[in-house]
């Protein structure tokens, strides 16, 4: 297996209900569609019932060792406790994307830039309530492409359940906004 895109060790973290696991599944599905090695590992403890939720996603051209990402090269953080917990773990040369409505952007560490996007606000303004997660995946792709853009669109279509196809169009719009964010 070889891909035009490098390996990705991603941590997504936030509150339960923000769609953290779905956003992770979207990235994982893109890896599946490009026939890469993929792992998606959620937290499944009591935190899933409304507290913090996080998940590890790996895309690789080699068999994946630990599916638990302890040294992420990319972090998507959607709340302060998640940012505080995971930002120090991001490797040099990596990057962090956060929802700047929920987490104030601080002076970044050397070699770990922070991209703040007021995704929850933008989503609400656009009538896309609850789709800040997908928007942030779009921003992730823009800053750190991890698959072909068509693949990401295809993955989104695959992740929206057949019975909820009416949600595909708003999801596409949220992704589009994320992809276009400067």
């Amino acid at each position, binding site marked *: 297996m070889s891909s035009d895109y490098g390996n990705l060790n991603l941590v997504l973290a936030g509150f339960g209900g923000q769609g953290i696991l779905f956003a992770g599944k979207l990235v*994982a599905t893109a890896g599946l569609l490009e*026939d890469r090695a993929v792992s998606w*590992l959620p937290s499944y403890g009591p935190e899933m019932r409304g507290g913090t939720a996080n998940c590890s996603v790996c895309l690789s051209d080699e068999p994946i060792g630990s*599916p638990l990402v302890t040294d992420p090269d990319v972090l998507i953080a959607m709340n302060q406790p998640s940012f505080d917990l995971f930002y120090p773990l991001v490797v040099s040369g990596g990057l962090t994307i956060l929802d700047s409505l929920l987490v104030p952007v601080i002076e970044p560490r050397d070699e770990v830039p922070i991209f703040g996007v007021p995704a929850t606000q933008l989503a609400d303004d656009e009538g896309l309530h609850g789709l800040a997660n997908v928007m942030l995946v779009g921003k992730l792709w823009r800053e750190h492409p991890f698959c072909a853009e068509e693949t990401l669109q295809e993955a989104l279509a695959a992740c929206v359940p057949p019975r909820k196809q009416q949600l595909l169009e708003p999801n596409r719009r949220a992704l589009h906004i994320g992809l276009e964010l400067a």
Partner: protein
Amino acid sequence: MPNEKVLMKGNEVLAEAALRSGCTCFFGYPITPQTELAAYMAKRMPKEGGAYLQAESEVAAINMVYGAAAAGARVMTSSSSPGISLKTEGISYLVGADLPAVIINVMRGGPGLGGIQPSQADYWQATRALGHGDGHLIVLAPATVQEMADMVATAFALGDTYRTPVMVLADGMLGQMMEPVTLPEPLDLASIEDKPWALTGTGAPGRTTRNIANSLDLVAGNLERRNDERFERYEQIKAKEQRAETYLIDDAEYVVVAFGACARIARSGVERARAVGIKAGLIRPITLWPFPTTTIEAALPGARAFLSVEMNKGQMVDDVRLAVNGRAPVEFYGRTGGVIPTPAEVATALADLQQTVTAAGTKEA
């Protein structure tokens, strides 16, 4: 599209693979982190025309398994650590009555109710003392979601061949994670070999005597003969069914032994150790019982020391020591209570081991 790769959770894959392996009966009881398996079965099994029942307890579920197995059905149950403890009486009966069944344990932290995070603390229970009396189960340990799919099919086949319950020993990490998986082709039920011992009544063609499935035998000599016969089968299993995977073992001086999800972490740890010049390798037992002693034996000539890495306080390390039998140092590194060791910790443990062994060698010289 039977051969298309799909992204699925380990727990659901175990269920789907069982359905495709001719499993027609499932009896379970919910417990985190394996509940998705039972939930998936609840949805799918009735559509397949099989029997699904959420029993009133784990004890009831395993006794339903006992009945279905005696009748010759391919039957499965699943639980997580505390639930498996409740099933152990029934598992001992299955062993005693020589009945095949597949038992899934998606391990969580213990003892007692413990926690719900991943653990490998039931190694001893699975390989040594799953219920009272002399006996074993074949124990298979998957490390990937793909292997979970393949292993369920293997488990049913081995169970039928050797007339023994088979355990698939997974953990919360494998149960909860998603990976791409190619599911096995659905098995043609007609291809499953006939079970002449099954309790199907005397009406079958050529059948004039009744079959009995029972673990009770009050005549001392008879019971011993039955046990001897079973242990002859165990010897065959040990000779023919040991399975293991190796990684970078050919020139390995420091051999990590790890199973299941922990083996994946150990593999990353071995790579890190190699990057700093430690000749590390990995043996991943796929069968925990029978333990792959021949693979350990093969690694022994080049090995300066072994390191068992587990998500418990040191259980499989006993089997490594038995296999090594004093011919090399065997050390242990592990985390418990749902804490997952990191590749960096494994690499550090390997560096420490190298230092200890080298220092001891210098002293001797």
